[in-house]
């Protein structure tokens, strides 16, 4: 991993990146833990109001207003409450929590403390995907340092009776565990199967206690919201989309990387200016704007501002802000196959439409891509995906169906080409996926 930079960036959460802020003293020198200390004096209501005013929306993908989420936690203390930080980052195309964990890990701890103060929780958990072992080690050291400085533990910041504990926790490889209720199951040592809602986590969550679940980036933004003030923070972004986001731009661009841009920044500019344009001067074919679950945009659909609302209007989503750029050489069918292969692999299997639907989608697209498709397959792909939409137990089913519907409607001609007499030659995805080949060989 390495840092990139562009003049259009507005460095709010990334301002400490590359300055050694993983060292607690450096972090403090750069203003660290000041906001947590301030938050103690502000009190819950003021913190929540500030966060509400900031128009900070969840960076995990759904874009739920963070202040509102916190305000759902019941007041009063009959059950322990928890803050659960979601560092499961596994959506293909997404690698924006990683730099925070590596370059500014204390901001996550500080944000967790502030969230705890806001809702009255005394314990925070930072759940990291199992693959991020080196980040877990960094986090563990930072947590230990924060304990040593008295920012965590008993009587934090020297205030009698004010306790807050925080620990990290490692996952072990499962995308679905990023879904908030499956995340709680996983933290409780179980299979990553989502829970029935209601009750929502804010009321009945971890160990039955009210729980706030936020993405790493959301939590890391919180100290900055307090630092700048809610209103100032909101101003950076667009209407109802406050602040900045870490956009991960990957795929066929000259300068891939994670860039901090204000909400609402132009997708076209992000690709052509910030990320240096299409790699090798090729032509753009399509863009997946917010991680693999967001419907694809065609090359002529990229004049859109990147915030939750504008992208929704454009028929897609901001999601995890992982922009994946596809040049003219990409086979959309191959891309669609690789995408559905992922969801088929990651479906937890709990509910029928997702478990069986992703499996049939994978099988059918594989067959088409092999040149063994039949004409009704294309309608059937759409039919299958549409039958999943809104009918699965958790949003993973939608996450698999939405991009598929996008590919097959926007690039149907490419699918049709595989049904023709002389289908295009399939790429490596087939050879390297023995399970796919075997299936199709029957």
């Amino acid at each position, binding site marked *: *991993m390495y840092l990139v930079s562009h003049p259009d960036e507005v460095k709010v959460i990334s301002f400490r990146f590359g300055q050694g802020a993983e060292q607690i003293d450096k972090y403090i020198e750069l203003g660290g833990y000041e906001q947590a200390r301030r938050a103690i004096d502000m009190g819950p209501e003021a913190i929540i109001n500030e966060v509400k005013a900031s128009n900070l929306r969840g960076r995990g993908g759904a874009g739920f207003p963070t202040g509102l989420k916190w305000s759902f936690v019941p007041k009063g203390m009959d059950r322990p409450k928890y803050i659960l930080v979601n560092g499961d*980052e*596994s*959506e*293909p*195309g*997404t*690698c924006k*929590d*990683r730099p925070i964990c590596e370059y500014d890990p204390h901001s996550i701890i500080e944000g967790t403390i502030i969230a705890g103060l806001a809702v009255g929780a005394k314990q925070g958990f930072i759940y990291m*995907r*199992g*693959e*991020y*072992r*080196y980040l877990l080690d960094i986090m563990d050291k930072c947590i230990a340092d924060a304990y040593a400085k008295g920012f965590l533990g008993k009587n934090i910041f020297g205030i009698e009776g004010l306790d807050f504990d925080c*620990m990290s*926790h*490692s*996952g*072990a*490889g*499962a*995308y679905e565990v990023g879904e908030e209720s499956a995340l709680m199951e*996983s*933290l*409780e*040592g*179980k*299979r*990553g199967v989502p829970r029935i809602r209601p009750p929502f986590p804010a009321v009945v969550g971890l*160990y039955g206690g009210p729980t706030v679940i936020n993405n790493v980036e959301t939590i890391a933004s919180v100290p900055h919201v307090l630092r700048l003030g809610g209103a100032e923070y909101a101003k950076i972004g667009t209407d109802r989309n406050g602040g900045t986001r870490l956009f*991960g*731009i*990957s*795929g*066929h661009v000259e300068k*891939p990387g*994670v860039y901090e841009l204000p909400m609402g920044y132009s997708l076209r500019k992000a690709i052509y200016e910030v990320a240096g344009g299409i790699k090798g001067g090729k032509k753009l074919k399509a863009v997946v704007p917010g991680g*693999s679950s967001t419907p694809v945009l065609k090359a002529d659909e990229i004049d859109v501002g990147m915030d939750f609302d504008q992208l929704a209007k454009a028929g897609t989503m901001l999601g995890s802000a*992982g922009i*994946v*750029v*596809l040049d003219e050489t*990409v086979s959309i069918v*191959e*891309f669609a196959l*690789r995408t559905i292969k*992922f969801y088929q*692999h*990651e479906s*937890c299997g709990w509910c029928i439409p997702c478990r069986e639907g992703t499996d049939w989608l994978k099988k059918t697209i594989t067959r088409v891509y092999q040149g063994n498709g039949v004409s009704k397959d294309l309608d059937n792909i759409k039919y299958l995906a549409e039958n999943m939409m809104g009918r699965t137990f958790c949003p993973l089913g939608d996450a698999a169906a939405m991009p598929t519907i996008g590919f097959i409607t926007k690039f149907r001609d490419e699918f049709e080409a595989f049904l023709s007499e002389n289908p295009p030659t399939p*790429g*490596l*995805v087939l*050879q*390297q*996926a*023995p*399970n796919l080949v075997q299936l199709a060989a029957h």
Partner: protein
Amino acid sequence: MSTPTTIFSAELAARLDRLVTLYPVKRSALIPMLLYAQDEIGYCSDAVVAEAAVRVGITELDVRNVLSYYSMLRQKPLGKFHIQVCTNISCMLRGGYEILEHCQHKLGVHENKGVTPDGLFSVEEVECIGACCWAPAVQVNYDYVEDVTPASMDAAIDKYRQLARPQ
């Protein structure tokens, strides 16, 4: 508190003893416990399952239910250096499959999760590992190798081979 007999090293046993005390329920320690155990033993063997069951106070069946869900946890040994090549979208666009094929070819392992005869390496096609902007990306055990080219992959493999040599 500590389990009387353990298959783990003293350090790991002590770490696991502590781990179960950190959460409101012991069971919460299960997934990291299995991962750490696997790091030491190489895989989640029957003995690992049995000990984990005792440590968190659930049945072995329940341990297996959980263990089989998580893709990093394995019930068979793999190579000492497990090469995990991401072929997901961002990596695929930048040659992830070519890297996978290169590794398989170079090490002579052709099925997914195949292990070299000397047990040193194994190769697996994996899903996105959070390195999309530095694609194509590979993880060798927990180490990231990013912006991989066939040449840099070869260099990395050589480096691990060196590491495995007795000094």
